[in-house]
């Protein structure tokens, strides 16, 4: 939707609040893959991640008037998605079906965006992908969240601080500790 591209996220939500349903479609178009990546890396299961992203958009639809143009729209939608993902993890822990070995990459096929790689790079990259994905799942929740938002989603520290509701200094410290922890885990996996 080329016409949709000229609007900022805040413009789109404002238009949606005024009854423009096409604005909502554009929001879905912009955020569905980004949110899926965030949720998938957080909870590790692709099917459930899609459900959570669907629920995120349903919440946006139902509660559109709850958004006020004080914070960025991306902060709001990531907060919703993050809360839903955390709820899902808590449910899993209560059900005790969460298993480190039950990862998303070997499960049902999911679409990856195409990148120009040689076959060797593809093989190596898939292998590394598995190791990295598994290692991320082993991180404590608060480390996992920040490292996904910072190093995978490439959000600013300021935005991450608003999404999680924690001071900026704490976010930077967590990101650092998360990277150190991940480094250790990756070393263990390789060994």
């Amino acid at each position, binding site marked *: 939707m080329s016409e949709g591209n000229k609007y900022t996220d805040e413009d789109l939500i404002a238009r949606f609040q005024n009854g423009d349903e096409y604005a909502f*479609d554009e929001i*879905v178009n912009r955020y*569905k*893959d980004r949110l*899926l*990546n965030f949720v*998938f*890396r957080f909870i590790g299961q*692709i099917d459930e*991640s*899609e459900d959570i*992203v*669907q629920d995120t*958009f*349903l919440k946006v*639809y*139902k509660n559109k008037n709850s958004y006020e143009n004080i914070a960025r729209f991306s902060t709001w939608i990531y907060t919703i998605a993050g809360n839903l993902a955390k709820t899902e993890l808590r449910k899993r822990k209560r059900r005790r079906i969460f298993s480190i070995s039950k990862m998303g990459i070997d499960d049902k096929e*999911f*679409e*990856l*965006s195409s*990148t120009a790689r040689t076959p060797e790079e593809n093989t190596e*990259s898939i292998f*590394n*992908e598995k190791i*990295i*994905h598994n290692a991320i799942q082993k991180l404590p929740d608060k480390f996992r969240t920040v*490292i996904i938002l910072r*190093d*995978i989603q*490439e959000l600013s520290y300021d935005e991450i601080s608003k999404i999680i509701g924690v001071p900026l200094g704490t976010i*930077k410290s967590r*990101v*650092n500790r998360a*990277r*150190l922890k*991940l*480094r250790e885990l*990756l*070393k263990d996996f390789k060994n």
Partner: protein
Amino acid sequence: MYCNDFRNNLTSYLENELSTEEKKATLAHEESCVECSSFKKEYLEVIGSLSKLAKVRTSPNFEKILHQKLEDLSQESLINKIGEFLVPSSIGVRTAAVGFVALLLVLSGSYLFYNSSFSGGGEGMPVLSSPSFIEKKVVESSSETKAEDEDEKSAESEKTDEEEEMNSAETEFNKK
């Protein structure tokens, strides 16, 4: 600078957030410490690997499913609104709803009553509310009552006749 400080400062160092003095100290330590130099290299590899992770995409029917869920949501919302109207939560509104239903019942009953009283009913089917039917019934019942009275009277007179016969029979017996 100690190795611990170096490692804890890495993020700030890479983000260019250290003061000039801190930056110099960090750089000097990196050049002098083989372990920390190697550590920094691994640290950067971690960040690089994360940014290069393949991006997943939503399934092709993602939006179709979402629109279906939105439709279900709007239907559910409509049903809830109807439900709230029929079974309202506040006492005052509930009372009004009950009164309204009662009024409807009375009105429909009256409608049926007046409607059938002018229609006269069908063939062979007595119309209960017809005045002519009621009158007829009254007449019938009074005639039935008369008939019963007459039966009683005739029964009594028969009894009297029997008694007389018995008495006469006794008299004749006694004579013998």
